[in-house]
């Protein structure tokens, strides 16, 4: 066996060795003959006879050479090599065809590989943890929010009661102000339960992770740094280990540094990781939902089994704590699904798009190949006649297809190599933070397998096309003069069908792009409930003993309003707890005094706003009054509500003067509604408007806020001043994300998703449309060239030239109508399936469909213009003489 392998490898090596071995053997044969001739002469033969006898005994020299060559190399590959050389020569002879085919294939390949790379990184690559398929995302679930936050108290019970998890931990996004010599700096953080890293199977690169006792109430605070934070804030010095840093004015000991490649997409890219020690803020309450769970399944436990048990536990807790746990279910899902996040549908859509594009590219090239096959009829017939077997011709076609596909692929891969990083670069920082897997994209085995698959399929398609053509006509007859009419018809039918398929695909993509484009446009013009132009914004947070207590926070609010108001160009200053167009969330449960209540959770958006907030945003006042600066601790507690809340809870009564409180209606929670504002969009552009309740900051304060100012000058120009003035007030105030509100909305996830998918699908649609029209043109041009004689006869018999041109245009129209008709039906069907990606646009949106139909029919007519003119210009004498 080993000997065989060795022999085979030598033979492969010789394939590339080329000449020397051949020359060597010639010399050996020469010497053989010489030796034999010498012997023969010695035996008394004449020189001529000696030579003749020697070569007869050797056998035919050419035969020996060939047998030797076959043994020396691999004959099959030798033939293949000859085919490749022949194919390349063929392609060089028709550079126009070769360039078109390779470019089309490269286009298809580049886009397919690009999207495949994203799909691979986001959906296919296993998560970088130990046994990632055993990790699950564990959360609560309510009707409105399928993946709702887990409450800390519920988490503790779930952890205690379950029998399905080998480990179960929780985490929540957070942030700190870190004291540095140059003032307070905001850092992103995640608070985790102590076993978090062990559950994932991650060990810090330096130091250690949290011990169980470090997650107990009252434990000394510790922190693990991300690799990036370590480099950024501490210069990558190992000496930081064991030292104490100040986060939110509390000392934290640095105990570990995470490995550079660590990522945890569900929590974004956090700089610091701290254990949940003493429950913070509302975490002592069971109704406070702020965590997500991650667990490792015990060996042999399926996700379904885990889900079933958790749902049971949630139901028991619901009975035990009817107040807080009403309607709180449980969900267990693979962690990989959660990590991919909401890019999944968009990516799958894009994948569908590129697959279609690749199909069109192949169809187009194969239709070009068909035209060539037709013009090569005679060559093929000759080769058949002198004995080339069908399989031999098939092999040659396959090689030609392979040469095309591989050249196209090479070009496409080079293009993708540049396009992929460029695309990643285009994704806004906010979004890419939630998709860390895109920052470490690389060439994986799966990607290579994918490319190999596409290459194989494309080659097959391209190789089979000419063969089908070949088997349909008996090649021998093609040697006879003037017999191309009948064979032309078969191909015309096939080519026409291919073009219709291409047009259908183009229609589907164009309709998709149109619908997505309209969605994006509608989205960007969604009713905001406020005037977004001329607004600048910055987030800030204050820490330390100076800012403790309600009075200090109100004082800070007043100081900021006064100082910022003095910046030239600023006309109004307001602040809120969460900027508009961010998210529905930060909610509270309300209960209306005097209305029947059965313990249901009336979840509404909860915002703390300054008295001047609605004025600054120019939100329309519907009823009652706005907040006044005097709505403070010394005055009765008041709130404002939005119209959605009025519609839901006061459908038939005047909300002004109504009183609302928490679910228990505890006396200190009761507030009076004094005003109704228009529906200010708190959630994303494609989210529905939730009921919202606004509390006056002077009665319900916080030390972190989002400042929003209206300016008479371009708002971006005052951002630096805004930042420095706020930081100048006190070194313990940190600022974050200065931006204009218009930019903020533009970069918001919903706007970005809709805009980018619309653009990408539009790009595909454009490519598909161009390819379809080129294909149509090819078919028509071929039709005219094949029917030149017929046209000549018609003209000679007195047909009008415009009738002849009309014949071509009619043919184009027929194909276009067929493509558009079927395409429309298909497009509406597909659009219905992807309705989740549309925003207030129906899948059968009439204007979109109409525009696509008109565009396609017009371009079909345009594609027929040149062939039609050529048909009309046929000179009957020449056409008839040519035969």
């Amino acid at each position: 066996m080993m000997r065989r392998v060795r022999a085979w490898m030598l033979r492969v090596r010789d394939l590339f060795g080329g000449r020397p071995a051949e020359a060597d053997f010639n010399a050996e044969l020469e010497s053989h003959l010489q030796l034999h001739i010498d012997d023969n002469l010695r035996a008394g033969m004449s020189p001529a006879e000696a030579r003749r006898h020697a070569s007869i005994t050797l056998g035919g020299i050419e035969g020996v050479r060939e047998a030797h060559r076959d043994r020396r190399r691999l004959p099959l590959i030798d033939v293949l090599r000859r085919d490749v050389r022949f194919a390349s020569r063929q392609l060089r002879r028709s550079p126009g065809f070769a360039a078109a085919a390779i470019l089309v294939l490269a286009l298809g390949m580049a886009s397919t590989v690009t999207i495949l790379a994203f799909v691979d990184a986001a959906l296919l690559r296993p998560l970088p943890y130990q046994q990632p398929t055993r990790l699950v995302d564990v959360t609560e679930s309510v009707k409105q929010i399928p993946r709702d936050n887990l409450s800390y108290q519920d988490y503790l019970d779930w952890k205690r009661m379950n029998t399905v998890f080998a480990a179960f931990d929780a985490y929540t996004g957070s942030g700190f102000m870190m004291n540095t010599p140059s003032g307070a700096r905001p850092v992103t953080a995640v608070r985790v339960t102590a076993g978090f890293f062990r559950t994932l199977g991650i060990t810090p690169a330096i130091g250690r992770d949290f011990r169980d006792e470090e997650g107990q109430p009252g434990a000394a605070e510790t922190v693990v740094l991300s690799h990036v934070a370590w480099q950024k804030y501490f210069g990558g010095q190992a000496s930081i280990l064991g030292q104490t840093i100040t986060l939110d004015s509390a000392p934290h000991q640095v105990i570990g540094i995470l490995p550079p490649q660590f990522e945890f997409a569900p929590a974004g890219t956090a700089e610091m990781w701290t254990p949940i020690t003493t429950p913070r803020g509302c975490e002592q309450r069971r109704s406070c939902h702020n965590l997500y769970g991650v667990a490792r399944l015990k060996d042999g436990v399926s996700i379904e089994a885990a889900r079933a048990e958790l749902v049971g536990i949630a139901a028991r807790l619901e009975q035990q704590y009817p107040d807080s746990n009403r309607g709180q279910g449980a969900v267990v899902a693979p962690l990989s699904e959660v990590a991919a996040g909401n890019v999944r549908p968009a990516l799958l859509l894009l994948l569908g798009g590129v697959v279609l594009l690749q199909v069109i590219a192949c169809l187009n090239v194969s239709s070009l190949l068909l035209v060539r096959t037709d013009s090569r009829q005679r060559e093929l017939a000759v080769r058949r006649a002198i004995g080339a077997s069908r399989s031999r011709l098939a092999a040659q076609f396959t090689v030609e297809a392979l040469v095309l596909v591989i050249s196209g692929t090479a070009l496409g891969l080079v293009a993708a190599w540049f396009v992929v990083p460029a695309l990643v670069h285009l994704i806004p920082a906010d979004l890419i933070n939630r998709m860390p897997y895109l920052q470490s994209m690389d060439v994986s085995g799966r990607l290579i397998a994918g490319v190999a698959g596409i290459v194989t399929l494309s080659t097959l398609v391209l190789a089979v096309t000419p063969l089908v053509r070949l088997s349909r006509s008996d090649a021998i007859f093609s040697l006879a003069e003037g017999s191309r009419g009948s064979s032309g018809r078969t191909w015309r039918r096939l080519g026409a069908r291919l073009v219709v398929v291409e047009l259908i695909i183009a229609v589907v993509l164009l309709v998709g792009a149109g619908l997505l484009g309209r969605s994006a446009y509608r989205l960007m013009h969604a009713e905001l409930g406020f005037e977004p132009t001329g607004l600048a914004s910055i987030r800030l947070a204050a820490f330390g003993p100076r800012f403790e207590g309600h009075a200090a926070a109100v004082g800070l609010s007043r100081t900021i309003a006064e100082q910022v108001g003095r910046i030239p160009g600023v006309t109004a200053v307001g602040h809120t707890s969460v900027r508009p167009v961010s998210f529905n969330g930060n909610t509270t449960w309300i209960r209306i005094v005097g209305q029947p209540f059965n313990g249901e959770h009336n979840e509404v958006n909860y915002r703390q706003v300054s008295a001047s907030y609605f004025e600054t945003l120019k939100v329309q006042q519907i009823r009652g009054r706005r907040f006044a600066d005097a709505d403070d601790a010394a005055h009765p507690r008041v709130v404002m509500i939005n119209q959605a809340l009025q519609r839901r809870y006061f459908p038939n009564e005047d909300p002004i003067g109504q009183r609302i409180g928490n679910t228990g209606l505890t006396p200190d929670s009761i507030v009076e509604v004094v005003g109704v504002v228009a529906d200010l969009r708190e959630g994303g552009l494609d989210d529905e408007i939730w009921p919202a309740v606004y509390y006056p900051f002077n009665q319900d304060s916080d030390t972190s806020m989002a400042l929003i100012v209206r300016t008479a000058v371009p708002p971006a120009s005052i951002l630096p001043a805004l930042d420095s003035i706020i930081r100048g007030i006190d070194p313990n105030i940190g600022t974050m994300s200065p931006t204009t509100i218009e930019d903020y909305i533009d970069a918001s996830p919903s706007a970005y998703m809709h805009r980018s998918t619309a653009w990408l699908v539009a790009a595909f649609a454009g490519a598909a449309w161009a390819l379809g029209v080129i294909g149509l043109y090819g078919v028509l041009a071929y039709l005219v060239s094949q029917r030149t004689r017929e046209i000549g006869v018609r003209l000679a018999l007195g047909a009008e030239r415009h009738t002849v041109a009309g014949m071509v245009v009619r043919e184009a129209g027929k194909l276009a109508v067929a493509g558009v008709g079927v395409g429309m039906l298909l497009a509406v069907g597909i659009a219905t399936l992807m309705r989740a990606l549309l925003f207030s646009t129906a899948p059968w949106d009439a204007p979109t469909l109409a525009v696509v139909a008109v565009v396609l029919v017009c371009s079909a007519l345009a594609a027929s213009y040149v062939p039609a003119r050529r048909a009309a210009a046929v000179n009957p004498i020449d056409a008839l003489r040519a035969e």
Partner: protein
Amino acid sequence: MSKTDIWQGTLALMILKTLESLGPLHGYGIARRIEQTSGGLLSLNYGTLYPALLRLEQEGYIRSEWGSSENNRKAKFYELTRAGRKQVSRETSEWVTTTEILARFLSPKGEA
């Protein structure tokens, strides 16, 4: 096994055996020797020898080198490698066994 396979196998063994008994030899010499040894029963096209030689060389049983013949002609000489020597003895014993078995089958019944 087809007829040519058997022929290939026997030819290879003949080549190896020739090289074993005569030492380094060129292709022509090997062909002459095989013809002589067979006592003229075997008339072979000398050319068929070369693919067989090449194969043996590829499999590492023999190696070749250019040298001078006895009457000072340039010629390519083949010689056994160590693997080749082992192969000769192995193949020889296999052939002996095979031919013995065959002989028993082919000889008249009474004598067995």
